């Protein structure tokens, strides 16, 4: 549904994004993560046809963004980072304006406005002036605007920024409900949100893709899985236990991790059977052999580094 190939955008000497490629199959939700200024918004602006790219190609909903921008714009709903609201209008006036701008058939306009207001939880808010709304409600109006023409593709730039936890859950449920019918690109800083919603992740850092693929793959790519090993050896020094584990061929690194040991191995090698049989052979007790996959947060930090955090 969305194909991005070798996209590069330069502003004069400054390269905002460089050689960005990814694709999103129909009905999937792609999480777009990265530190501030990494190029998330630029990429989204290119995909919506707002900015032209310097190099590369992007196909959205079957149309080339640079050759058929109008066809792409018809099929994309876009929520920019700041909801694009006219402060002096009411919610109803604004959404009716958007419906006209989107050239929805006259007969459908009011019905669609009613439907999206219902969907984003704005029922009864029609006469409220946009400038007086709280951030959460502005965000909802922005989402309503993006959904009006029932677009197959949704591009949402930080849809939950500035929301309180309850509203956050609301928006998350809304997005989960939209997946399937809509192909969604979602940028956010809130990593648990990505873990909850997105099957696929693109991590962008300093304009380049640092990791991409399924959630599992990105986590593994960032920081390999490790094992927490808890052994009980009466009368043996913890350091000696660690040495014994480290002597196994399958084990690469051993570090003490509280009461337990943190064990790393070569990718694709599971050291647990070897550790278990070694422990049993020496008459040690085994109370834990867990594989731990790093969280997305750990992956993020290991790739981006902590200077931006």
């Amino acid at each position, binding site marked *: 549904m969305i194909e991005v190939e070798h996209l590069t955008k330069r502003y004069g000497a400054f390269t905002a994004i460089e050689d960005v490629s990814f694709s999103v199959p129909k009905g999937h939700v792609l999480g777009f993560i990265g530190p501030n200024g990494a190029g998330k918004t630029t990429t989204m602006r290119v995909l919506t046809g707002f900015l032209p790219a310097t190099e590369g190609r992007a196909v959205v909903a079957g149309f080339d963004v640079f050759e058929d921008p*109008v066809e792409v714009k018809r099929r994309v709903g876009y929520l920019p980072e700041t909801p*694009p609201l*006219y402060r002096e209008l009411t919610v109803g006036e604004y959404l009716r304006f958007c419906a006209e*701008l*989107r050239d929805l058939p006259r007969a459908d306009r009011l019905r669609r406005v009613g439907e999206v207001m219902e969907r984003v939880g704005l029922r009864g808010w029609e006469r409220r002036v946009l400038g007086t709304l709280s951030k959460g409600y502005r965000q909802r109006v922005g989402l309503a605007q993006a959904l009006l023409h029932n677009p197959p593709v949704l591009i949402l730039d930080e849809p939950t920024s500035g929301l309180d936890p309850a509203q956050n859950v609301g928006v998350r449920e809304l997005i989960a409900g939209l997946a399937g019918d809509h192909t969604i690109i979602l940028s956010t800083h809130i990593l648990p949100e990505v873990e909850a919603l997105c099957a696929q992740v693109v991590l962008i850092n300093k304009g380049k893709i640092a990791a991409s693929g399924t959630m599992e793959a990105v986590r593994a790519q960032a920081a390999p899985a490790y094992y927490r090993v808890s052994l009980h050896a009466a009368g043996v020094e913890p350091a000696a236990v660690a040495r014994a584990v480290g002597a196994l061929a399958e084990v690469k690194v051993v570090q003490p991790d509280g009461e337990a040991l943190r064990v790393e191995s070569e990718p694709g090698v599971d050291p647990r059977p070897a550790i278990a049989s070694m422990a049993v052979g020496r008459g040690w007790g085994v109370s834990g052999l867990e594989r731990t996959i790093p969280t997305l947060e750990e992956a993020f930090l290991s790739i981006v580094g902590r200077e931006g955090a």
Partner: protein
Amino acid sequence: MTATFAILKRELLTYFVSPLAYVFLGVFLFLAGVFFYLGIALTGEASLRVMMGNVSISLMFVLPMLTMRHFAEEQKTGTFEMLMTSPVSPVAILVGKWLASLTLCLLMLLGTGLFVAILAYYGEPDWGVIATSYLGLFLTCGVFCAGGLFASSLTDDQVAAGMGGIVLLMPLWLVGSASSLVGEEWQARLDHLALLPHLRSFTKGVIDTADLSYFALLTFGFLFLTFRTLESRRWR
């Protein structure tokens, strides 16, 4: 077409839900009233000739203040991004905004109908001349609105857009004032460039294609420059 109309409607709504339209109508009608009174008191004619000339110059300062927010504010608040990601051409956006400011001009000119009524009550004005005068003034509004929009498209700061618009339009007036300083040969040339001599034909009751082309050329020129600026903003 739908989009142009939608934008026109939205802009008018914005004018009238804020104090903007009322302030403009009030200020403009006050200025026009002063010039109307002075014109009658100084010449004793039942005509709008003096008022028209002075009103056109005040419009040069007033209209950029009206148009300054059109693009500058949209750039600043981010609504421009929504417009440009809708399946709408920049031309439709531009024309919608231009027509909106022109609609307000039309209301401002309609307001001066009161002065025409006073003329008709106390004297015998030449209706043909009044009609051509209004046409001339309306065409002038078209030029000033287009120039103001161009200034607004150049920046996301409203005040800069307003001042820029005035500075952009002033040469059209100054060139005429300065023309008497430069000798006869150049005077004629500069008078062709200046706005007031062209407006003067209308206020005398003359509709000349040369004058019509002058206004049309300036209006389309400014609108075209605005269009190019909107297109190029995306590249920067």
